[in-house]
Every structure is written in structure tokens, then in C-alpha cells.
């Protein structure tokens, strides 16, 4: 087997993923820090290395509209965006999932202003939770590339047919160069056969799409099918991850990655690249005799509640870190985890931090782990809190 290792940023890894998936149409609008994804794809196409067609549009709303139209004709499509761009796409996101179009989109997690910020947090994608898109959060650049290939396999499954966001943290992944193994094209082609949907726009076989339905008509039934597809996706994400391991030797845990949970009493639940740093912190604390472990949620939608409940049910205490906020209550991941554990006696506490690109240091993560150990011994003091604020001496 020939391994091709390249030094790639998260954004280039994303562009390579789209190229290897033999995407036919890319419609995108540049926004920092996503820009280099579409620049790289444009370069691939200009060099004749990528057969897809690139459509320049004037906004993210149009980018998604173009992807929807292209995907409706039965071709594989890709786009990428970030932050305010994703927010502008919001209306079309509902359309893409409602029309059951397996579009794959790279989203580079960036804060939403104001105050203006180009740096990372997960507010942009968390705000799109209810648009019916599958959301996969990645930890490193290899996973970005692999997840895009896996995403098409998951999305195009007849029991799923939902669009997927493959999400990477701004700068921490998007602009960080790491060694990445590029899978062989022939193997990707075998893993990802040509997309050939059963229903598509075809002048020879006229069909209507997205028509008006009456309250007595199939609107609710149609939405219920979307719900079923999301539930199906939960298992299919796990299956595709195992299949990917068989074919390419790498696995990420599917919907959930478990790290050092053997005998772990105090567990932190986290999403995105900060999990990578947190693994180093877990190792350090384990060496000091503390029974800590880590759970990384890869799939925020569908939310793997069954697996998570099983993984967390006998732990002494659980902490949940959110790199986003929902003003008026704790973080979105925290509320999901706590409702997943409803009825169990395990204390669950939320921590909100790392907003607007504030560095999540090993020191901060260590303090969070110590707090999780503390609530395991003393019980919970408050439901959630913001960590790492300037002037807050506790953190």
C-alpha cells in the first residue's frame, strides 16, 4: 500500500476531501477563515485535477440555493462557509434538509459578531441545530478529510438522505498545518460509488419538487420521515466509521469517541479540536492517579443519546464544555447531555468558555477536571458557569 502524506491545513484537508469524493458541483462564497477551502478547490479545477464545476455566487444564500438546484439534478455537491455566512444561509439550510438532499458542507467554526471576531467558537453551527442537518465535529485535519469522504457515504444512504455539515475549528484546524494521509483515489472510488439518486430533476421523467401541501396532507408525515432519517443516521454514522476503518485503517468512534473511560469516575464531554488538547490533560491527570476520562461528541445532530447514556450511566460526575452559548440557560451540549442522563443520580455541570477564539489552555482544562472531581465528591454547586473570564480568579 502506498501512503501519501502531505502537510495540510484543515482547509486544504477539506478541499482534498471534496476532490477525492469526486464532487461534481461546488458553489461557494469566500469568508474568513473558510476562504482557502474554496481557493484550493478553484486551483484544483483550474489545474484540471478536479472534474467538478465551480459556480461563483454573490452570497452564501445563493451558494446553498445553487447547491440545492444542482443536487436536485442528481449530482454530488459541496460548499463551505463560516460564521455570518452560515447565518445568511439559514433559510436555504431548511430547504436542503427538507428536500432530503445529501449535500455536504464544510463549516469552519467562527464566532458571530458583534463584537466583530474572526476567531473560533461553535456559536455559528450550534445556532443551526434545528435546520435538519447532520453535524459532525472534527478534532484534527486528518479527521476533516476522512469525515468529508464518510459524510457522502452517510448522507447518500437511502435511509438517511440528509445534508451534513463537517465542522472544523477556525485557525486551530483551518490554518494549522499537520501531516495528513491522503487516501488513494481508487479506494475512495470503491468506498464512495457514483451518486445516483432515485428521484432527480430529469426532463425525460418530469416530477414536481417542494410543492404546497395542505394541513391534512402529508406535511407532518414528511417531517416525521426526516425525524426517522435522523434516528437512522445515528447507527449509520457508527457503521460507516467502522467500514472506513476496514478500508482506510482509521476510525473516530462514529457518533461518539471514548477516551480513557476504563474505570473513569469523572468524565468531561466536549466537541471539536479542544478534545485533542484535553486528551493530553487526561493523560497527565491519570498519571497523577485521578480517574478522569473524556467523551468527544462527534455527532451533535443526530444526538447519540442512547450510546451516551450507556457510556455515562455509572460515572461519579460529568462535566460538559460548550464553546458556544444560549443566553438564558446553560450551553446547548450541556442541556442535551443532562437531559440524556435524566433520572440518574450523576451530577452534570456545564462550563462555557473559549468564545471568540479565546485559547482553551491545558491549565483551564485541568481546572475544569478538578471541578468535575469536586462535584463528584461534594455534589453540584451550580448548574453551569462561564470559565476563563478576565478577572475571574477562580478560573
Amino acid at each position, binding site marked *: 500500500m502506498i501512503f501519501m*502524506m502531505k*502537510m495540510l491545513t484543515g482547509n486544504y484537508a477539506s478541499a482534498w476531501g471534496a476532490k477525492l469524493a469526486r464532487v461534481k458541483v461546488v458553489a461557494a462564497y469566500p469568508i*474568513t477563515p473558510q476562504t482557502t477551502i474554496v481557493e484550493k478547490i478553484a486551483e484544483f479545477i483550474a489545474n484540471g485535477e478536479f472534474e467538478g464545476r465551480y459556480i461563483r455566487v454573490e452570497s452564501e444564500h445563493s451558494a446553498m440555493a445553487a447547491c440545492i438546484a444542482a443536487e436536485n439534478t442528481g449530482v454530488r455537491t459541496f460548499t463551505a462557509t463560516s460564521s455570518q455566512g452560515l447565518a445568511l444561509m439559514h433559510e436555504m439550510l431548511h430547504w436542503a434538509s427538507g428536500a432530503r438532499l445529501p449535500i455536504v458542507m464544510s463549516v469552519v467554526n467562527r464566532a458571530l459578531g458583534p463584537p466583530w471576531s*474572526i476567531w473560533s467558537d461553535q456559536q455559528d453551527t450550534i445556532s443551526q441545530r434545528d435546520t435538519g442537518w447532520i453535524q459532525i465535529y472534527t478534532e484534527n485535519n486528518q479527521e476533516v478529510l476522512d469525515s468529508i469522504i464518510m459524510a457522502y457515504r452517510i448522507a447518500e444512504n437511502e435511509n438517511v438522505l440528509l445534508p451534513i455539515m463537517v465542522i472544523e475549528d477556525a*485557525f*486551530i*484546524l483551518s*490554518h*494549522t*498545518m*499537520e*501531516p495528513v494521509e491522503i487516501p488513494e483515489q481508487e479506494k475512495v472510488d470503491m468506498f464512495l460509488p457514483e451518486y445516483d439518486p432515485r428521484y432527480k430533476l430529469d426532463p425525460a421523467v418530469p416530477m414536481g419538487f417542494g410543492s404546497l401541501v395542505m394541513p391534512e396532507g402529508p406535511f407532518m408525515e414528511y417531517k416525521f420521515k426526516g425525524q426517522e432519517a435522523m434516528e437512522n443516521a445515528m447507527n449509520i454514522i457508527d457503521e460507516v466509521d467502522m467500514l472506513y476503518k476496514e478500508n482506510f485503517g482509521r476510525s473516530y468512534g462514529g457518533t461518539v469517541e471514548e477516551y480513557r473511560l476504563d474505570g473513569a469516575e469523572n468524565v468531561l464531554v466536549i466537541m471539536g*479540536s*479542544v478534545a*485533542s*488538547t484535553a*486528551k*493530553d490533560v487526561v493523560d497527565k491527570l491519570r498519571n497523577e492517579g485521578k480517574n478522569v476520562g473524556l467523551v468527544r461528541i462527534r455527532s451533535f445532530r443526530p444526538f447519540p443519546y442512547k450510546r451516551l447514556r450507556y457510556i455515562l450511566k455509572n460515572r461519579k460526575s460529568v462535566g460538559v464544555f460548550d464553546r458556544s452559548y444560549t443566553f438564558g440557560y446553560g450551553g446547548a451540549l450541556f442541556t442535551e447531555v443532562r437531559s440524556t442522563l435524566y433520572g440518574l443520580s450523576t451530577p452534570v455541570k456545564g462550563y462555557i468558555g473559549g468564545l471568540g477564539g479565546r*485559547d*482553551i*489552555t*491545558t491549565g483551564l482544562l485541568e481546572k475544569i477536571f478538578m471541578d468535575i472531581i469536586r462535584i463528584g465528591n461534594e455534589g453540584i454547586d451550580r448548574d453551569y458557569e462561564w470559565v476563563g473570564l478576565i478577572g475571574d480568579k477562580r478560573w
Partner: protein
Amino acid sequence: MLEVRFHGRGGQGAVIASEILATAAFMEGKYVSSFPYFGVERRGAPVTAFTRIDSKPIRVKTQIYNPDHVVVLDYSLINAVNVTAGMKREGLILINTVKNPEDFLFDVKIIATVNASEIALKHSLGSHSAPIVNTSILGAYAAASGVVSLNSIKKAIAEVVSRMVDENVASAEEAYKSVKVMKK
């Protein structure tokens, strides 16, 4: 793990320098990561970039707070930024300046200087007001630190830099020879 922090100004190529160094170490079989910290995105603004090099996979994704080595691409930054913040005392600092290592009082083990601006200009890299010094300073870094070979730096330049490769390689070679190193 070796941690290197680059201080430059927008347009000097600090981010590319961190990428070339990472690529060179990667070519020598090391695990690496390289990443920028952008301040304001404009020419002349202070820019920080980081490179990590290790013999095992690198997981930590924070900024570098306790660098082993610091590379300063612009002499004027010494009065604007605390370039040695958190630096390890057994570390190395390399500065682009006309001065000699003896002129600096940094409390670190190795101080090195190189006139990277002059070398860059001689090879037509950048303009007089904004020379692109990243490849010259990396030649000097290879000599002063011994972390990577000059040959790997040259190969990495060819990989990362898309234009004026010969001029960049020649700059690295010249700086490799002309760097001044003072060890305490």
C-alpha cells in the same frame, strides 16, 4: 517536544516561516504542527506563528506559552512585543538585526543574530521598506539551532514557496553561513 514561536510583522512571512520549518522537520521524519495567530489582518501589524516538532504525534492545540526557541523577524518588535515572554532559560532566540548577539541582554542560553533584511533584499525578496525575510532567517535558524538541516530547509522552501524558489534558497544558504551565535 520542541516549541518555536515566530514574531513578525504582517507581510514579512512569519506564518510561511513556521510552515517551512514544520515541513522541513516533517521531511526529516518528525511529527509537526504549524499555526498562526493573526492579529489584525494588515501589513505591518505584529503577527505570531508557532511550530511544534516532536518524535510522537502532537495533540496539544493551544498557543505556545513556554517556547524553547523564539525567532524575531523584525528588530523593531523587540520594543513593541515581549518577545521572550514565557521563554525557557535554556532556550534560543534568533533576531533579524544588524547588531551582534553580544548587544542583547536576554536571559537565555543562546542568542543569535543575522542581517536577514539585507540578505533578502540582495536576492530581490520584497521591497526596501518591506523585505520578505522568512527564508533567510530560516537558514540562520538551521545553523543556530541544529533542529533541522539546511538541506531540509531548502527542500521545504521548494515545497511551500510557489515563486522565486531559487532566490529564497540562496537567501537561506547565505544566512546559514552568516549567522552569529553566542552561547552562554
